[in-house]
């Protein structure tokens, strides 16, 4: 659905050239939810705006929804939906009016546009708000209207820029349900940016980690986390931790064993699969296991390993052109 080759964007500023995106190569398959994860200023929005035809690349090529980004921007626009980070609605316009106008810009005749608007409003829990001015909506309602505006023409590929920023936890969970529905119910491909680890983890089939304008890692949330350090199984023991540690270290799938107060910490490839085997080994040796816990590394650990800094330490400067 998306293929990029060396896509790059440099901004001219008074301070000199800023390389917001430094040549990214990636693919997104049809029907995937792919997340672009990175701190503010990493180049997420700039890349997305290039793919949505809003910003011309300074180098590189891309195919978006089957059309060439540089040569056929109109065909790209026909097949994508784009939901910007900062909202897309006119405060004085009416809810249904916004949707109908947007659909008609895509060449959809008025009666059809009105039917689509009604259906989307119902699907996104906005039913009954048709005649309300946009400025009277709550933050969550307005965000769902933004998303409806990106979907009203039924695009096979949807770009969402920081979809849940500024939403309360309930609205957020609700929005995630709608985004999954795009893939599961409509068969759409979703390409979203986020700087929330939990969002990327909960929503994405695959994650591209971006930092300083480059893709530094790629994979499913699970695979990325495994790649970093493996899972940690912590066993609390009634007995000598040192003897248990020696015993476990000899097991084939164990990467590292560390005696801790009253037990051992064991690093394995897959904690959920290995934990029981570890318990059986100890059981066989007569060591009683009092409790057991399995911890997965977080995406923040992935980011730390890939870039040497935490995702939570936001980069100081955002790229120019309103492109964090």
């Amino acid at each position: 659905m998306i293929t990029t080759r060396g896509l790059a964007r440099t901004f001219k500023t008074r301070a000199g050239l800023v390389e917001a995106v430094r040549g990214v190569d990636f693919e997104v398959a049809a029907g995937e939810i792919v997340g672009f994860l990175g701190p503010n200023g990493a180049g997420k929005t700039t890349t997305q705006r290039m793919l949505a035809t809003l910003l011309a690349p300074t180098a590189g090529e891309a195919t978006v929804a089957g059309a060439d980004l540089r040569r056929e921007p109109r065909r790209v626009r026909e097949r994508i939906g784009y939901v910007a980070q900062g909202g897309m609605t006119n405060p004085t316009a009416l809810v249904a009016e916004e949707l109908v106008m947007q659909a008609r810009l895509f060449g959809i005749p008025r009666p059809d546009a009105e039917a689509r608007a009604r259906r989307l409003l119902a699907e996104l829990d906005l039913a009954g708000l048709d005649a309300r001015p946009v400025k009277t909506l709550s933050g969550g309602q307005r965000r769902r209207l933004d998303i409806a505006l990106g979907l009203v023409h039924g695009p096979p590929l949807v770009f969402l820029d920081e979809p849940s920023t500024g939403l309360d936890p309930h609205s957020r969970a609700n929005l995630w349900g709608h985004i999954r529905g795009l893939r599961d119910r409509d068969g759409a491909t979703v390409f979203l940016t986020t700087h929330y680890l939990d969002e990327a983890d909960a929503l994405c089939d695959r994650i591209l980690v971006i930092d300083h304008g480059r893709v530094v890692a790629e994979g499913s949330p699970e695979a990325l986390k495994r790649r970093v350090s493996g899972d940690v199984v912590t066993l609390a023991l009634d007995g000598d931790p040192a003897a248990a540690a020696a015993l476990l270290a000899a097991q084939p799938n164990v990467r590292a064993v560390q005696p801790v107060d009253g037990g051992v910490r064991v690093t394995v490839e897959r904690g959920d699969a290995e934990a029981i085997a570890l318990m059986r080994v100890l059981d066989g040796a007569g060591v009683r296991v009092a409790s057991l816990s399995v911890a997965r590394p977080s995406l923040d650990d992935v980011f730390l390993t890939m870039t040497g800094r935490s995702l939570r330490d936001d980069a100081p400067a955002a790229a120019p052109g309103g492109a964090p």
Partner: protein
Amino acid sequence: MTRPIREALVVFGYQLRLILREPVWVVIGLIQPLIYLALFGPLLEPIAKATPGFPPGDAWQVFVPGLLIQLGIFGSMFVGFGLLGEMRAGVVERMRVSPASRFALLFGRVMRDTLVLLVQAVVLTLVALAFGLELVPGGALITLGIVALLGVALSSLSYTAALRLKSEDALAPLLNMVSVPVLLLSGILLPMTLAPHWLYSLSRANPFSHVVEGARAAFRGDFGATSLAAGLVAAAFLAAVSLWLATRTFARESA
């Protein structure tokens, strides 16, 4: 109906509904020219009779077309501020990501602005009748056409400036800087035929001075005047160039 026109009509309808929801702005735009009409117009009556070099026709036939052109210029000059508000709200980007032609996205707005302007111009002309304007209907219609062309030109230019500057703080001083010389060198308030030679020559370089003189010829019913033809050509030229410039700016990626 061709696609860009259909798309422009969608934008026009949307923009028109937005302004009809707050029609007070249309009324406020009329207040300044009405004040000029009431408080400045009467001063011209004795001057027109006593001053050699004052253009032919009754004082109101000289002053009202000038006021209409002033409305055309100043009524449309500030539409860029509305666009900046929509840019900030993300509405412009949302339209740009649709396949609609860039010309249509611009022209739909320009049509709305021009319609609002024409409504104001008609009201202003009707009020002027009460002050004693002798109306030549054909001439008034031609003048409304000229006002429409100016509306297209000035709203396009205002959008171009807004898209390039992207800031109210930069747009306001630019408009102020441009508007005063344009106003004074167009002979809107007092005809340039009263000016000393150097000032008259300078005013010839201002296309709006030709537009004003064309409108005056139309208003007094002098349909064969070369100044009328020159005014129409100047207005059409301004509209075409401005529209082209604005469409180009709208299509530019960073706009």
